[in-house]
């Protein structure tokens, strides 16, 4: 698949949030306002792209040569966990305000399915190193897109009188559901027609 | 009407109904037996009462002295006895202390004669006279005129702009003033020019007053006064000084700044007349023209009214009002206040009294905001009223302030246009009040 294809696929068609059910916890948790959503989106994009690349290396330099692919999950997640922690320490040092906004969700990027998800998908799709990286970035951007849109909507909803029991996460889920409904416009046929 | 000047953004065209009164000559209203003269008739600190119950006072005598830099003197509108000092509600819903005066029997207002002695006075002395006469802006804001005419050091008034827009529907007091007192106004302009020393003097008049445009042009020419008469396209709130300056000069007063920041001083025509009377006639400000109008009044008209006159007495002069008016409004219909007590007194800032029927007030039931954007597109200040309102509605005053709540001048365009009937202006007021309250605590 071409790079353009990879980008379109992961940003729109297989949007991790709206079509793949991956990365929902931070999507719901950190989308209360646009600023922190943007921060989280970029953090995830960054981690995903690096993770896709790093796990590609593990797969092709360690697991495949040694024929120990059954260790995929454990090695990938180990790598990701270490990476996230690294990013966390870095942000904490360089931007305390961002750190405060992302709060408990930064560590949760570790368990953000999206990161492991993109690593596994990239490996299973036999992407080369650059393709893996592009896939990582695109999937991250797809996450960014979804979470920023969601946060803008939630900010708007903040100034409406949403019925009491629906306030907070329930309305976020329903909003996400309606977004997903609309995103069904982006289907695989669209991709095929666009890039042949 | 192409090519006429106006301001660029926002604005509305409410129904005018000026024809109820704009052909009616100004008549002097009867002075009632009892007058209630409030101390807070102007922007700034209320005046301090300097008389006591039982005092005998004369017409034009000082009864309240300014209590600070931004404050204004208050004079007795009649001769008589001080009955009591009490608290009253003003039309704007605020409380003020007031001097209640019993008119002396057989009181006849003094005749004033014009004198030219002001020509030999320095600008500073003239400003003192204006101050001592308690002249405030009669365009609505009632800002002490002497403060305004004291151009701060380092600033230069290029323009003196006379605000004869009278963009509020219904009102015609300024219009009549120009028709009936053009000559006095030119004299007033000479006086103000001496204080402010502008390079140019312009007068902005909306095109719905062609006779006034005509007469001001002729009179200035006749008296050899260099006055630029600027006919303006009809649009509310052109009478607001920021919009007027934009329309006349194309300049935008910076947010939070004063007209002088763009080299302008703006005065209402009524104020010009008041300055003329104070300086040339030696008559302090205790009388003004009030339009009494609306479909609920039997005989609408313009009345030269003493400050302190209860509204009910003016209404009698108009032959009374209909049985069940929807609202009684003091001021114009866009910026004015509805009142519940017809004994509320006329003050220096009272430009009109409206008796509105249901048909005119046209209020419908409130629904949720439709995000239609009408409020945004009509706001002359380039604000987002619905957004600010929603913040206020959720008690989030900080966010409202961040969305420029303080730039709102409560012109009412937004609330007028809103199809959902949302009391946007009241929201802005509440927001400002609560934000201030929060700051204090």
């Amino acid at each position: 698949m071409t790079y353009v294809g990879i980008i379109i696929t992961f940003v729109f068609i297989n949007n991790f949030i709206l079509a793949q059910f991956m990365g929902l916890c931070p999507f719901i948790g950190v989308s209360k306002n646009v600023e922190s959503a943007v921060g989280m989106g970029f953090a995830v994009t960054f981690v995903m792209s690096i993770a896709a690349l790093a796990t590609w290396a593990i797969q092709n330099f360690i697991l495949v040569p040694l024929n120990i692919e059954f260790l995929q999950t454990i090695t990938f997640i180990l790598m990701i966990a270490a990476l996230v922690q690294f990013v966390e320490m870095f942000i904490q040092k360089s931007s305390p305000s961002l750190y405060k906004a992302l709060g408990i969700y930064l560590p949760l990027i570790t368990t953000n399915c999206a990161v492991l998800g993109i690593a596994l998908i990239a490996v299973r799709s036999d992407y080369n190193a650059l393709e893996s990286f592009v896939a990582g970035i695109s999937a991250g951007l797809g996450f960014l897109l979804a979470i920023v849109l969601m946060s803008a909507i939630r900010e708007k909803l903040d100034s409406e009188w949403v019925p009491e029991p629906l306030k907070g996460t329930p309305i976020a889920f329903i909003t996400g559901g309606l977004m997903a409904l609309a995103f069904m416009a982006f289907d695989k046929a669209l991709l095929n027609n666009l890039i042949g | 009407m192409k090519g006429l000047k106006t301001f660029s953004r926002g604005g509305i065209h409410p129904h005018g109904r000026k024809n109820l009164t704009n052909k009616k000559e100004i008549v002097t209203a009867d002075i009632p037996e009892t007058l209630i003269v409030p101390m807070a008739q102007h922007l700034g600190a209320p005046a301090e009462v300097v008389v006591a119950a039982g005092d005998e006072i004369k017409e034009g005598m000082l009864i309240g002295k300014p209590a600070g830099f931004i404050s204004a003197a208050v004079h007795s509108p009649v001769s008589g006895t001080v009955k009591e000092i009490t608290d009253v509600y003003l039309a704007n819903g605020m409380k003020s202390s007031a001097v209640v005066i019993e008119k002396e029997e057989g009181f006849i207002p003094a005749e004033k004669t014009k004198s030219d002695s002001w020509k030999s006075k320095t600008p500073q002395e003239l400003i003192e006279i204006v101050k001592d006469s308690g002249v405030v802006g009669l365009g609505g804001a009632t800002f002490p005129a002497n403060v305004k005419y004291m151009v701060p050091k380092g600033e230069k008034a290029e323009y003196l702009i006379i605000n004869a827009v009278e963009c509020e529907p219904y009102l015609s007091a300024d219009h009549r003033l120009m028709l009936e007192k053009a000559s006095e106004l030119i004299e007033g302009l000479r006086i103000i020019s001496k204080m402010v020393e502008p390079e140019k003097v312009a007068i902005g008049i909306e095109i719905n007053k062609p006779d006034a445009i005509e007469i001001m042009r002729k009179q200035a020419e006749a008296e050899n006064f260099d006055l630029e008469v600027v006919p303006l396209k009809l649009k509310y709130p052109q009478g607001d000084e920021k919009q007027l300056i934009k329309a006349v000069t194309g300049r935008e007063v910076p947010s939070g700044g004063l007209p002088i920041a763009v080299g302008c001083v703006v005065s209402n025509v009524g104020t010009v007349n008041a300055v003329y009377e104070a300086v040339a006639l030696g008559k302090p400000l205790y009388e003004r023209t009030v339009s009494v109008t609306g479909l609920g009044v039997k005989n609408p008209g313009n009345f030269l009214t003493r400050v302190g006159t209860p509204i009910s007495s003016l209404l009698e002069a108009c032959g009374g009002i209909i049985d069940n008016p929807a609202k009684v409004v003091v001021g114009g219909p866009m910026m004015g206040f509805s009142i519940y007590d017809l004994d509320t007194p006329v003050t220096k800032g009272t430009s009109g009294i409206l008796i509105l029927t249901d048909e005119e007030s046209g209020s419908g039931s409130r629904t949720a905001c439709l995000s239609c954007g009408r409020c945004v597109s009509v706001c002359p200040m380039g604000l987002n009223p619905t957004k600010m309102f929603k913040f206020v509605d959720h008690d989030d005053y900080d966010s409202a302030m961040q969305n420029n709540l303080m730039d709102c001048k409560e012109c009412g365009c937004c609330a007028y246009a809103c199809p959902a009937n949302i009391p946007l202006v009241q929201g802005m007021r509440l927001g400002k009040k609560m934000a201030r309250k929060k700051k204090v605590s």
Partner: protein
Amino acid sequence: MFKEFSKGLIKENPVFVLALGLCPALGVTSKVVNALGMGAGVIFVLLGSNIFVALLKNFIPEKVRIPAYIVIIASFVTIVEMVMEAFIPSLYESLGVFVPLIVVNCVILGRAEAFANKNNVGTSILDALGMGIGFTLALVAIALVREILGAGTVTLIPVGSWDGIITIPGLSQSPARVFSLAAGALLVMGYLQALINWATTKKAGESK
């Protein structure tokens, strides 16, 4: 003691209240049987990891806490995956790709971090059971709604000759397919959560 167990069921239900582990909660719930299988897998992994984290909490250095935990978790997941594939292939078939997803289920690391890390083995086991069962209950609830609306069926574990599928007449001919897709999953999740909010606040109001 019992509180450690019961809190996970409703009061601190990982899915509805803590909003963790959302992806599998939505990803596998198009069929009830998947929800059950996923729940079983999660309970096992939660138990294993909670026990080991509680045991090793003093051994593991602070700086590599999360990597260490996640390695422990990943080991259990891989074990589940391999064992399931080898010995109960039919269940593995129906769960497919969702088994490795357990690794990244936020609930598990969340509990390791928030609970096992600070408590002893006994209470950690109770916590794991409570959370795991709460998680399973939530999944089953979501799956029931989604499958009934979205497919007109309820798919349970096949027993003997019964294929485990209950078909709802009428609905199964023209189900609201959206509910079996991503959009429907999110909607159902939202409304169930709102329902729980409403019920709990109402209860709080009544007990007053």
